């Protein structure tokens, strides 16, 4: 199973050999367009965790994220006949996910509730976990939960547009140009939003940062 950390690896490969990654997806898309509905499952398996991660970090709700991720793939499936391959499939599906989530966030005027995923300590390589390993299991669990809540609270304080850029760049590991293509903005706008969002997060999380 692909890990979230493989997101950056996937897109790093896409950057190194964008044509091959893109062509692979395009070949699958053409099979689906030709009537091989089962081939769409390959695209689902490849991108479901990436899409879920984006939506989950945008909504901070695992149930909503699950529904919206499914909705994203349903929309993509319905519209795949009109996909002409002018952009890469991952750009296209990310754009659908972002637009679907933005529409959902506009309808959801107030945050209903937050439900987090459990942090998978095995895959975490951050220094925070390395430092937390010195603590006892009970202390570590409480600290991780608090840190998780604080992080999600801080992200939710950002506007959806700023949150999108932070999630795509800092968590998903996408480049500025890719984010600009997905959000249909300029690279300058992406950089500007990222700079502002990180300033905001710095102030929200100052107690937890060195």
């Amino acid at each position: 199973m692909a890990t979230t950390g493989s997101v950056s690896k996937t897109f790093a490969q896409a950057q190194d050999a964008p044509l091959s990654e893109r062509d692979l997806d395009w070949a699958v898309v053409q099979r689906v367009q030709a009537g091989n509905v089962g081939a769409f499952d390959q695209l689902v398996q490849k991108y479901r965790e990436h899409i879920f991660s984006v939506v989950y970090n945008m909504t901070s709700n695992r149930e909503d994220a699950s529904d919206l991720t499914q909705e994203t793939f349903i929309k993509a499936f319905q519209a795949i006949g009109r996909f002409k391959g002018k952009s890469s499939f991952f750009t296209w599906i990310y754009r659908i996910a972002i637009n679907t989530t933005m529409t959902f966030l506009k309808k959801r005027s107030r945050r209903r509730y937050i439900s987090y995923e459990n942090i998978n300590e095995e895959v975490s390589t951050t220094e925070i976990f390395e430092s937390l390993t010195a603590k006892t299991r009970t202390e570590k669990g409480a600290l991780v939960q608090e840190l998780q809540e604080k992080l999600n609270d801080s992200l939710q304080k950002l506007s959806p547009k700023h949150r999108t850029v932070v999630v795509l760049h800092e968590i998903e590991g996408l480049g500025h140009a890719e984010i600009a293509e997905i959000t249909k903005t300029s690279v300058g706008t992406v950089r500007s939003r990222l700079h502002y969002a990180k300033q905001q997060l710095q102030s929200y999380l100052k107690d937890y940062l060195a």
Partner: protein
Amino acid sequence: MSKLPEERPADINLEDLLRLKRSERPSEAFWNDFDRDLHQRMLQTLVKKDPWYIQLMRGFSGRIGQSVAVAAAAAVVAMVVVRPAFQPVAAPESFAAAPAPVVEVTPAPAVEIVSAPVEVAVAQLSLAEIADLNSAADYHADIISVDGAANDVNFVRDFGLESMQVASYEASAYSVDTANARVSFASTGVASLVY
């Protein structure tokens, strides 16, 4: 209260903190449920027929819609550009009651020609008045009698000549044409008979 702020790890920056969120991952069981639900929804999508308005919108976004849009645009252009050429020209009052032709491409000369007899002063003269006119004017009015003209063919007039119209032109340029009912259809002059 957490101990984290007091005992926060050294050299932790925002990027590290955000990268922690990559560890928030669903379990394998979650993905099993996800795949099952997604397949069901996709199946429903394949089976379910879209509402009529969705199909209509889809049609308008497709080639049919594009063709309809082009045809509509052409119709609008035709209405704007071509229609003024078919605007009916206002007819004179004397023809207002008559059924106006739909296409009258050259109305101006036609109106002039048709209205010419109207504009010309017309007098209804009796035969005696014409005789007086010949004696007083510097022109001569020939009266073509149907009785005289029909002698050779044994024609007997069975109607009375009540009056005739004579157009008055410049004295030096015109002559009065008179005709009776027998020859009126062949006359090319402006005079006409009224019975």
